[in-house]
Structures are given as C-alpha cells and as structure tokens.
C-alpha cells in the first residue's frame, strides 16, 4: 500500500468523525499556540528590558543610594534615604582619583506638572550636573544645553515640547515648573521610547535650579550618579576606582558596609535578562504541559478509534493487510491530527504575536525556529502518542477482531 493511499485512507477515517477530530486537533493547537506565544512574550520582554538599559548610554556605571548585600539584607531605603550627594558626584569627576571615568553626571528626579499658557503636562523633571548629554548619549535637536549655574533654564524632550506647545521647535518660549518660570533653551533629539521608559518625555534643568526652585530646601542629595568609563575595557577599573573613592568618602571600611550600589550596564542587562529567561522557561513549561495534555487527547481518541474499528481491522487483516500496513494507517491518522494542530496552532500563535503587542504594549518575538520547532513537536507528539494505539491495532488477532461486535 503506497504512502499516498495510506494518507488517503487516514484522511477518510478523520473525515468520518469530523467533530471528534476537530476537538483532538484543538488540544494540540492550543498547546502549540500557547508555547509560541509565551516564549515569544518572554523573549520580547527580555529584548525590551535590555534595550531600555542600553538606551541609558554606553559604557555606563550607575551609582544609586542604598545597598543590598547578601549578609545584611537591604541597607538604606532604595532612594528614600539619599546617601548620595552632589559632593560625591564632584569627587567622582576628579581625574586623579578615578582616571578611568571619562564623564560624570548626577541626577535628581521629580515628577512635576509643567505649564505653558493653557496647556499643562506632567512629566519627569531631572536636575542634572556635569556632562549629562555625553554620559546619557543624548543630543540636542535645537538650542543649547542648560547652564549648570542657571536657575531658570530648561531643556525639553521632543514629546514634552509637542504636548505643551503643539510643536517641537520651542526654543525661546517659557514654561512654568512648580511656580517658577523657566526659559526653554533647547530641545532634545528623539531617542525613542519603550514599554517602561519614555526618553522623549522629560524636562532637564540644572541641579541648582532643581534644588532651589523645584523641590526647594537645601537638600544636596541626588537620586542617581552616572559614570561613563573611558572605554569598554576600562569599565571594571572604573568600577573599582569609583567604589574605593565612595567608600572612603562615606567612611565605610569595606564593600560590605557600603551605603550605595554600583551597577554596570552589563550586569543590569544580564540580571534582567536572566530573570526574564527564568520566567520564560516557567511559562513555556506550563504551555508545554498543555501540549502534553493535547498529546494524551490524541492517544485517547486513537485508542477509541482502534476499539471502534476492531472489526474493520480484522477484516482488513483477513483480506491481507500486514501488521505494518495497519500500524501505518493509525500512525498516519495520529500524525495528521498532530501536524494539523501544529500548523493551525503556529498560525494562531503568530497572529496573536502580531496583534497582542498593540494591546499589551509589550513586544513579542516570534522566531522562525520556534514556529518550525513547534510544528515538528506537534508531529512528534502525534507520532509518539499514536504509537501505542497503532501497535495495539496491528497486534489484534484477525480472528478476535472479526468476531468482535
């Protein structure tokens, strides 16, 4: 019996029980679509996060207040008790103490409402020092950057400018932040946005302006200090230098007693991606379980079909069907169910992956490998769970099969 005929016979058997076959296919389909989608979502989130972190700048070290160590848990609230000050940033700018750091900027962030005429818009206002543009890898679209000593100059992100004025070219206009009027001296070049941060919706003022006019008081603490290493190879040297300088300044004897944390961009990326990778594996595992259940569904339906068709099997054997032909007949049915579920499931998964990001605001990465792989897995599941029923059918003694009612 040729393969085309075996396939035709199998197709005939599937068509004879359309509803049952559709439900069996549905089991596989859901499993495959779930695997493709969860893996895609996991990889997409991983990609989003690493892009977010890379968008901060290049060759960056990020110093934040507070620390968490293995021995003592969390020391100092993360950003609550600000242990980093302007003085720390100024010390880190010293070429003598930290030769491998090329540029430094400190940031103090606060969410504020900006007003321009009738329009108002709430965004993150950052008071910054030093080489902010260079360290954060940003450029100006127009105008110039704020003077570090000024108390009434602001640079707007392009999106903030558009929200307030309806256009991006707004150098020379004024905005009011926390009751103080600021001149717009420049507008940033667009840097794009991602799921968690919008780099184009921001307002940058000098740290002086931030403390005097926006947050008020004489608080000299900053929320983050960014260090840019001279080049990629110098990152670990810069890390060591910055750490020992800050430990000395803060009077801490060892790294365990530090009240700050230094992260490199790489370590942030790898921590974040490893977290999301674990999550992806977990989700894919759950989706994989549903695929397993789908496979058991195939086996169940094949066993029912063998029992139902015992008499037919007996007759075919009496007419000269060798065990191999009977086995192939049932295996082919199982593979068709599996592959159909795989193809439709993959299609559904891809369609969902293309439509979901718009609804969820998070990327979904669908690799051809995942799609091809899951179709292959569906076929394998069909075959695997079809083997036992098929072997059972092939082993039926023709006489017992013919006698059955």
């Amino acid at each position, binding site marked *: *019996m040729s393969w085309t005929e075996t396939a035709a016979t199998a197709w005939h058997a599937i068509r004879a029980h359309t509803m049952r076959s559709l439900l069996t296919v549905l089991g596989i389909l859901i499993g495959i679509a779930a695997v493709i989608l969860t893996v895609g979502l996991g990889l997409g989130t991983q990609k989003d996060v690493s892009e977010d972190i890379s968008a901060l700048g290049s060759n960056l070290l990020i110093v934040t207040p507070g620390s968490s160590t293995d021995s003592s848990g969390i020391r100092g609230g993360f950003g609550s008790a600000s242990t980093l000050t302007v003085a720390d940033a100024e010390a880190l700018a010293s070429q003598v103490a930290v030769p491998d750091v090329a540029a430094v900027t400190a940031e103090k962030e606060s969410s504020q409402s900006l007003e321009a005429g009738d329009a108002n818009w709430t965004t993150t206002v950052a008071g910054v020092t030093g080489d902010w543009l260079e360290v954060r890898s940003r450029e100006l679209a127009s105008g110039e950057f704020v003077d570090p000593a000024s108390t009434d100059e602001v640079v707007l992100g392009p999106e903030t400018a558009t929200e307030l004025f309806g256009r991006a070219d707004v150098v020379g206009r004024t905005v009011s932040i926390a009751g103080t009027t600021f001149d717009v001296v420049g507008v940033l070049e667009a840097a794009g946005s991602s799921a968690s941060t919008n780099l184009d919706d921001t307002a940058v003022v000098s740290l002086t302006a931030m403390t005097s006019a926006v947050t008020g008081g004489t608080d000299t603490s900053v929320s983050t200090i960014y260090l840019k290493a001279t080049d990629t190879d110098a990152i670990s040297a810069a890390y060591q230098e910055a750490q020992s300088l800050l430990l000395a300044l803060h009077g801490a004897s060892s790294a365990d007693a530090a009240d700050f944390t230094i992260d490199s961009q790489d370590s942030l990326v790898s921590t974040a991606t490893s977290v999301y990778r674990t999550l992806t594996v977990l989700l894919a595992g759950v989706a994989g379980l549903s695929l397993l259940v789908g496979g058991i569904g195939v086996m169940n339906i094949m066993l029912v079909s063998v029992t139902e068709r015992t008499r037919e099997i007996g*007759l075919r054997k009496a*007419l000269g069907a060798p*065990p191999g032909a009977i086995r192939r007949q049932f295996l082919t049915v199982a593979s068709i169910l599996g592959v159909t579920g795989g193809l439709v499931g993959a299609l559904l998964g891809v369609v969902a992956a293309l439509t979901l990001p718009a609804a969820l605001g998070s990327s979904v990465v669908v690799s051809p490998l995942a799609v091809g792989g899951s179709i292959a897995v569906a076929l394998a599941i069909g075959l695997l769970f079809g083997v036992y029923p098929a072997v059972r059918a092939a082993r039926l003694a023709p*006489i017992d099969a013919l006698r059955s009612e």
Partner: protein
Amino acid sequence: MTASATAVGHADPATAAGADRPVIDLRDARKTYRTGDLEFEALRGVDLRIERGEYVAIVGPSGSGKSTLMNVLGCLDTLTSGTYRLAGDDVADMDETDLASVRNEQIGFVFQQFNLLPSLSALHNVELPLVYRGVAPAERRDRAAQALARVGLADRTANRPGQLSGGQQQRVAVARALVGEPALVLADEPTGNLDSRSTADVLDLLDALHAQGRTIVLITHEHEVAQRSRRVVRVLDGLVTSDEQVVAA
C-alpha cells in the same frame, strides 16, 4: 487425486505450478482454547485433504468445531498441534506478515455478516485485497469492476453497502473474494443472513466459480446448501465423522 487435479488443470493455468499438490492438507489438526482454567478442545485430530478444483461443504451443528476449522483453513487462527499445508506451504513456518500475504494471495473470504466496509463504495470494497497486494490503482479499478460485473453488479459500483440489499451485499463480498484470483474461496455460512432468492443467487455464483475451476470450501449447517457441493465433510465434536462425495442429482 491425480484425476481431479488434471480435471481442472486447464481451467486455472496461473497456478499450474502448484497444481499437483492439494490446496488444503491438514494432518492431525488440534486446537485447544483456554479461558482461565477451562480448556476446550475445538479440534481433536482432524485430517483433511482438498484437491484443486474441489467444491467441498463442511457441515455440522454449532459447537462442532466447523467454525474453528474454517478459521484455521483461512489462516485466521493457528493450530495448537498438527500441520497445515496451504498449497504445499506449511503455515506454521510463517510470521504475521507472511500469513497476511498468504491470505491476500491464496484465499478469498465470504462471511455470513458480509463484512463490507460501510464507508466505502462497492468498487472500493472489492479493490481492497488488490490494495494490499500493491496493484496499481488503474488496474485495480479495472479488475474490481470486472469482478463486480461477474456477480451481476456492474451498475452498482458506486453504491455503498448501506444502499444495497443483503443479497447484493453478499454478491459484492463474493466479487471481493474472487478479485484476487485466489486458489481457495472460503465461504462461512454465506447464505445465513439471506432470503431464499438471494440464497439461490449466491449459490449459483459459487456453482459458476466452481465450474471455472476454483476450489471452494463452504461452511454451512443447512442441508440444501450442502447438497449444492460435490463433497460433504461432516464435523462433530472436533472430529470428522463422515466424508462423502455428493451424487449429482
């Protein structure tokens, strides 16, 4: 033995090579069924030889062992002890795949329940033995159509079994039994489910097949049916009790 072989030799040139050997050669055939602790001897030492071209009826009451005998002759069941040579080949030496090809090439079955596949047309049902023999589709269709024409159903090839009367279904089954040109046609109570007119049709068909030189073994418990054959073998309690030629009326 020689006489009967030569008598049909001209009618079946395709199998001339094995013409000098009996189609069925059963020696001291025993079959014991076991169900838990219970043992039941269905065959208790049967010797039976059937030559090429014979038309033999095996008769006996139910429980006599004639169905077991039929299953053994059709290679659907194996013996507990004894030997069975089909067209000279010892069946005990064969595995399931060999047996499948023996059933396919040497034997044509006609069952009491017709055993047609309900989802296939008459033509496809008749084609089945050729499918498993690996005959090309076009040739298969031609031969199946010819076989259906021989049983008088040339105009019913596209009908499914459900659209045919019992007599017509059994004629489709006969067409299926002869489409592969087997050495032996085994008919197990072929008229058991038929009315008298259809019974006559099917028996006429078997007569015609016999006239063409085919070997026919018919299992029945009906006296009138048995009388249509040329030799009646009576089975009782797993043994052959009589074996006599029928005197043509």
